């Protein structure tokens, strides 16, 4: 794919598509061009990156092993993963009550407790995002997006915590996590193993 030359807009559109995994709606000019280059696939109203598109972005975003900021990013990333686990556990609790039944959001006390604990997670991730942003400029936008989803959640629409179909708190978090993995050049599997190691090491 080295011979593909993308405009800045096309590049940005491709990165967004790989981070988000998909897009829906009418294809933009950039997206149409990307499809023609074989980097994304347009299927009716749905678009997704092709393996070639994903490989292109992975190669482009990955920091070189000897990049000076790499060590700092990894150190912050290791602080991020335990918080990541907390967020996933919280989303699970939001969807499923401890007895395994689906959370029907009829128990105000239960929901309010989860919402309250989300503030702890949001507080914990704030300094990490700040630090990531110093080395990875693309990370700057996530703080605002997380806050936006929280505001919508507090306006009373429960979907804004964990729904995968909108830019909910969980969705935005997944995107920023994905972007970190692309930057570090770490696979999802390695990431999960590292998280498990960090969480069990800290807790037992």
């Amino acid at each position, binding site marked *: 794919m080295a011979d593909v030359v993308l405009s800045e807009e096309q590049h940005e559109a491709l990165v967004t598509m790989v981070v988000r*995994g*998909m897009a829906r709606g009418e294809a933009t000019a950039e997206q149409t061009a990307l499809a023609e280059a074989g980097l994304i*696939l347009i299927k009716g109203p749905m678009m997704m990156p092709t393996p070639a598109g994903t490989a292109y972005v992975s190669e482009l975003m990955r920091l070189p092993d000897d990049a000076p900021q790499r060590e700092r990013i990894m150190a912050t990333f290791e602080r991020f993963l335990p918080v990541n686990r907390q967020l996933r556990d919280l989303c699970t609790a939001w969807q499923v009550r401890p007895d395994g039944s689906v959370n029907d959001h009829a128990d105000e*006390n239960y929901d309010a*407790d989860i919402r*309250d604990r989300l503030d702890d997670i949001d507080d914990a991730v704030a*300094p990490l995002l*700040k630090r990531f942003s110093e080395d990875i400029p693309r990370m700057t936008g996530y703080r605002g997006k997380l806050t936006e989803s929280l505001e919508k959640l507090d306006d009373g629409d429960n979907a804004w915590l964990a729904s*995968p179909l909108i830019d909910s708190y969980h969705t935005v978090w997944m995107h920023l996590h994905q972007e970190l993995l692309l930057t570090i050049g770490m696979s999802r599997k390695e990431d999960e193993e590292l998280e498990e190691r960090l969480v069990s090491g800290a807790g*037992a």
Partner: protein
Amino acid sequence: MTRASWTQPVDDVGLVPFGKGIERGFDQRLLCTRGMQLEILAGLGLPVGAGLTIPVPNVPGVTSADRAKAAMNLLENISGRQISGTTDTGGLVLLRLSASAPVEAAGLPPDLVCLGLKRSVIPEGLGSRARADLAAAWWKSAAFIAEHALNVPGDELGTLDMDYPDPVERVDPFKRLCEEQGSAPFPTKRSEQVAAGARAMIERWNSPRAARARRKQNLPPDLPLALHLETVVVTEHDNEGNGFAISREMDTGVFAPNGAFRHGFRLSGERQHVGHPLSELPEGVEMLTGVLAELEGRLRSAVIVDFEYGPEGLALVGLEQIRRPSARVATSLAVDLAIRGIIEEDEAVDQTDASHVLELLHPQPKLTGQEVVLVTGLGASPGAAVGQIALDSETAVEMSEAGLPVLLVMSETTPGDLPGMMAADGILTVNGGSASHAAVVARGMGRPAVCGAGGLRIDREARTITSGEHTLSEGAVVSLDGATGVAYVGELSIERPTPSPSLTTLLTWADDARRLGVRANADNGPDMEVAVDNGAEGIGLCRTEHQFMGDRLPLVRAVILSHDLDAEEAALAALADAQREDFRELLRAVGDRPVTVRLLDAPMHEFLPSDPEELADVHQRRMLDHLHEENPMLGVRGVRLALMHEGLYPAQVEGLFNAWVDVVASDDIRPQLEVMIPLVSIPDELVMMLRLIRRVNQQVSSRTGMIIPFTIGTMVETPRAALMADRLAQWAEFLSFGTNDLTQLTYGFSRDDVERRMLGTYLEKGLMTASPFAELDGEGVATLMEYAAAKARAVRPGIKLGICGEHGGDPSSIALCEQLGLDYVSCSPTRIPVARLAAAHARIRTTATDS
């Protein structure tokens, strides 16, 4: 509890050791939930942890070091331990400050653990685990106090946290930060630490964050706090630790204490779910088992207790009643309490929710023992799914577009797999637990999922999956159960489970308690078998319409579209034979029970082709044109059709009576026949049909030499029928309210149109609180029913009254039927258990109101 009572001044209420509140006249308003939990535990004579409550009115006082010191002194007396001193086993004694409100509330400040550290120095001489736990817990408490009582910016604390990963090394920079940026240095005196902790908790409880939590729970903005002060022993010894125990197994509901414990002190107010199983407790679980049984009996709910253990044994430090138990827990608990004699059987029935019954009988994959398990993982998103496997997102999308059911099978999923997950009917992953991306997203989309099926290997090159001896290629059919976490090779059918033993017991008790009979709407033998399994006492509505569909359709068409009598008679004779067969099968399933057979009721157009070209006969085509109706639901249907084709109902009952004679002879059963005429609104419609049916009865009797007993009755489904119920009752031996049509005609609603287009707006505008087709209209339709029932009984006192609309399975409608004094309700076979329970509820609650 009014808001005023929380703010009433109480004079010098002092400090209250755990378990001494009630005897001193305190209640939950002052002790708050945590204080009250310990009162309950101590009141049962159970050992409780050493601690005291600072009741609501005293909380502001304890923000001063003097009062904090007094609380610490009292705690030293209660516990027999010196704060900052060491125990016999070398443990360091510190403090825990926690908060609770007069009611269960989210948004409380976190527990402050490990207060009282001398000069805030993490001491040497502890083991490495104890020291690490202590440093982590102390940092959390200290940072909380710094942020909320000393106004140190949270950002700065976050930065410190990152710059000094080791909390021991963080202590000195932290103290400097407080001096430089805080309103005061971090307190060195232990009583000042406690006072500052109390201040921080109050500040946090007054913060926008906590205010939001109260608002979300509809709690008063000025809900107060009580504080609780306890000792914490920081130790390296394995014979000291803490844990929790739940009285019941969550998935079965059975009483079986389970939980987890860990060595060391409680790190936070939140339960740590990871740890050793209770069976490994040094003391064993006997005492906890006894405690939980005692508490369940006293509180009549499933419970969780938090405990600590040490050289002196076990002490209880927390209690939670499970407020919203699962269906299995609720039913199992209710039966256990009744068997123990703690509640009456009626109470057990009364406290069982109809939704629990529905949940327990929710469809599940049907297991025969013959199915082949592919792999087992975690049940990550409930529900069952069957589909062809796809090994990547793109393939899943393609298969779904081709109209195939798809199961997406992947090692793990990433946001990039969202298109495939949306396209899939179910998701199976090799890695990840119930909080993995796949699980969270699957639940968010309502897709069943099994995650963490570690026994599965995916070969992306060969496009196969392998587990043990099974290798399946992409496209093979797999079934999965997202509740149990099992994936099966091939297609599994989905069916309703049999009731659990607890549910069976409760339903038997419900049968003892109810007055209303419960019958089924069943049209054939298999339906009736399900109904009988579910406890139906008979059939309240057998719709004969379906017997006219399929290969019988030409016969009915021949009757309706006939142009010569011979052809009609031949068709009727064939119909009578066909019906005889149908009814034989049905009556065998009915046995000796009553069965109400409703003669043909469908609107005529359901039997006629929409396209005249389907008819070969040119006369029939002309007739079809002639029979066109503008509004078939209000046109020639029910008894009206039967009056226009007078051979129709006699043919049906001839089939029925012959079938009865057949099964009496062959099966030695005597079904109680009840023949029901639909859509009557003029009493003479009923009279004319009655004469025809009696004539057929006599004919079959004389031919077979058997008297065929039957009763005859009518549906009440038009307002006119309800208004004329006394006249109908002169002839009818039973009346059955067809509340679907009665509701349509009373409102003048066309159900489909109204539910699709209008109902949402009406619910939104508050014109209705529920669809009148789901919940019987208690004001209008029920008034008509009440009038009809009274008029009918005046003429025929013992007349049997029932309901056979869908309302017959709805709890609130069943309660109305109880009030109206109906004899039975009839509902779909699968709703029978709900109806049995709801009928018992209606009776128990009516009786309670009467007395």
